[in-house]
């Protein structure tokens, strides 16, 4: 199946060194994003959320509450992004600031927007359209050949049914253009060779010192004792193709909008 070729094709060309049946993959140290850097997609998503949920009290310019100017970049009850998140989710007792129930993606967007209200140019970002994004997802992007949403699509790659509640807009956009950079380590593809030479490719669900649990490319749940294997390889390159050159910026924005709409049940 082509879907499986997409998912696992990258496995074949990589030479892996290491012990006979276990390949340890060490953490790849990377510089963390600077605390002051926020993805434009997050800022734009946050702006839309702000318009929908915050303007009633704070106003479009962030100065609707007496003595509070959100555009100043200084907050009376918050210094860090964690503080801001806490204020938004817990409210401020004794004031009109209520608690908001927002998921991780929405919080990342709100914080990014609050940090950039003063400089964000709404005209610089064209918001995506979720319906158009779904059409790209199912059509041109052929995403459902590997990913599942609800009861549709393959289980070979991670299920995206609630990805809009767990991944930020910026992360989703990068997932489409630089898939490896956003691949969670648990989703690293694995290749198993049993003692009798049988090859199984799959996606990790769990692992401990002695065993590993997978969903394989036939969508079977399988568990192996590592010492029974001839080879066990964890790969660090995502088999997902980059859509940087195959989708337009508008199509990418539409797909991100669609993914952000996937909040699970």
């Amino acid at each position, binding site marked *: 199946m082509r879907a499986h070729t997409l998912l696992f094709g990258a496995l074949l060309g990589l030479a892996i060194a290491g012990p006979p049946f276990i390949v*340890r993959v060490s953490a790849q140290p990377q510089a*963390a994003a600077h605390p002051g850097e926020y993805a434009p997609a997050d800022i734009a998503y946050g702006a839309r959320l702000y318009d929908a949920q915050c303007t009633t009290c704070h106003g479009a310019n962030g100065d609707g509450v007496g003595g509070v100017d959100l555009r100043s970049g200084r907050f009376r009850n918050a*210094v*860090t992004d964690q503080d801001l998140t806490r204020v938004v989710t817990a409210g401020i007792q004794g004031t009109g600031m209520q608690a908001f129930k927002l998921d991780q993606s929405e919080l990342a967007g709100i914080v990014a927007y609050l940090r950039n209200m003063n400089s964000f140019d709404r005209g610089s970002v064209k918001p995506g359209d979720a319906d158009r994004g779904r059409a790209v997802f199912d059509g041109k992007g052929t995403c459902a050949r590997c990913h599942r949403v609800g009861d549709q699509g393959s289980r070979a790659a991670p299920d995206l049914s609630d990805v809009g509640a767990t991944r930020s807009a910026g992360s989703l956009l990068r997932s489409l253009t630089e898939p490896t950079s956003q691949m969670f380590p*648990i989703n690293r593809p694995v290749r198993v060779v049993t003692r009798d030479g049988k090859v199984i490719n799959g996606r990790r669900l769990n692992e401990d*010192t*002695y065993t590993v649990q997978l969903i394989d490319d036939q969508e079977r749940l399988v568990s192996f004792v590592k010492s029974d294997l001839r080879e066990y390889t964890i790969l660090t390159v995502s088999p997902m193709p980059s859509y940087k050159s195959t989708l337009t910026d508008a199509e990418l924005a539409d797909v991100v909008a669609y993914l952000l709409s996937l909040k699970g049940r």
Partner: protein
Amino acid sequence: MTRRVSGMSGVRLALLTMLLTVTVAGVQAQVGSDRLANAAREARNWLIYSGGYFSNRYSGLTQITPANAKNLELKWMYQAAVAGAWQTSPLVVDGVMYLTQRPNDVVALDAKTGRVFWIYRHQLDPTLIVCCGANNRGLAILGDTLFMGTLDAHLVAIDAKTGRLLWKTTVADSKGGYSVTHAPLVVKDKVIVGVGGGEYGIRGFVAAYDVRTGREAWRFYTIPAPNEPGGDSWKPCPPASSTFCDPEAWKHGGGSVWVTGSYDPALNLTYWGVGNAGPDWNNEQRPGDNLYTDSVVALDADAGRLRWHYQFTPHDRYDYDSVQVPVLADITFHGQPLKAMVWANRNGNFYVLDRETGKFLVGKPFVKVNWMDTFDERGRPNQTPQPPGMPTWPGNQGGTNWYSPSYSPHTGMFYVSAWEGYATIFGGTPVEYQEGRNFGGGVNRPFVPVPGAPAVPGIRRGPINNWTEAASTGAVLALDAATGEQKWKFPMTDVTDSGILTTASDVLFTGGREGYFQALDARSGTLLWKASLGAQIVSGPITYEVDGKQYVTAISGLSLCVFGLRE
């Protein structure tokens, strides 16, 4: 019967009484100071939290060997009822096991069958404030009296035969975040405990209490007052500080004691590891080295006077508690006998100190370290704080933590549970002290290679490891006790919070978050045997002998599992 006894002569009756006394005493003798001093040589029992005053968690028992460990099987289980990390380490005295269970119960049971004799239930103050989990790590015993510290900062004495409360004394006010979570240490006629609560801005101390009355005999503050030795390590705030600085930082300077200390009878010194400074992460508001946080202190056991100290992490900004059991070892160092203290610290370095003087002899990383690079000749680290937003190794939970290491005099190796490849992006934020309120002062983020990816949790979240090798892995490391050189490594996929036990037959027992209980060859690290117990193991195994049979314990989740050889 009555008539026969009455017919005995007075001499015969006295002889019979003596005989009965001797016979019973042979089975269940009181645990006197002499037995405690020689606890490590009384291999069939486990009389002190770490097995002996030197805290080696090493047993002289040899029935279980590398050759027969494959024949280990479950002998009995005991189930607790209160969920949460069960960190206790049992005592075993002449066939009776004593252990604590959550939140502050004491249980006495038959060490051969697991059947219960009695349970003592301490009633906790409902207003208590306790940091980092409601844990208790064990007991101490002297004579027929058991001693337990409580989460509401009391010390209780319990009759070991009946479970009846003998006395209870207040160690500190739990409303200020004080607690006692570790097993007390009995030295001669005193029972010694320290207080936890550094995350609530306590002023830590170690104190000794009369074993008969509970009256306080001495107290050593781990945070000195300004007029006391070490008080000048809490420096005054700069006159024109641009950031928040607390002029009375020492008053809530932390310095918790989370785990049991050690004792050298020949030197009459008791050694205690001291926890982090308060607030944990915003070091800027407490200028100076902040003694005696992140230190080991050597105290005169009779009077509590400080004999020496060594500070592992001056002016800490990483929560690098010295929350480890001080391991005492008589080793050969550069060809000379040395009364050593060997220590794998949360800050990622392994140390050898002279335990008579506190002199720094060896400092060597056992995991990746980038918060410092070199030591000066007195052992002071040259700190290399990372730029904002960059990761620091080891991360907040440390290269190791509170769980007991082991030292085997038989192999000369020191064994430690380590977290490898684990980092945190640290950040401090000002925090003003308020009694009973969290006093962390940090904005830390676990370091993960992909933003938003699961990070290794500070405490176990469940049976699925979705943070994987990218966030951290665990290991048992065997280090040369005199040099810190790694002799072997037993890698684990998940991190481990388990203590380690070694025996004179060179078998090493340990667990981990994955729920496996493992026996390794202590000389090579080779896996000898394992059992999947299903839940995390976060305490230190012990071993003991009853009726000529050796047993070894593992606590997994709510289950105390006891193993022995198949017959």
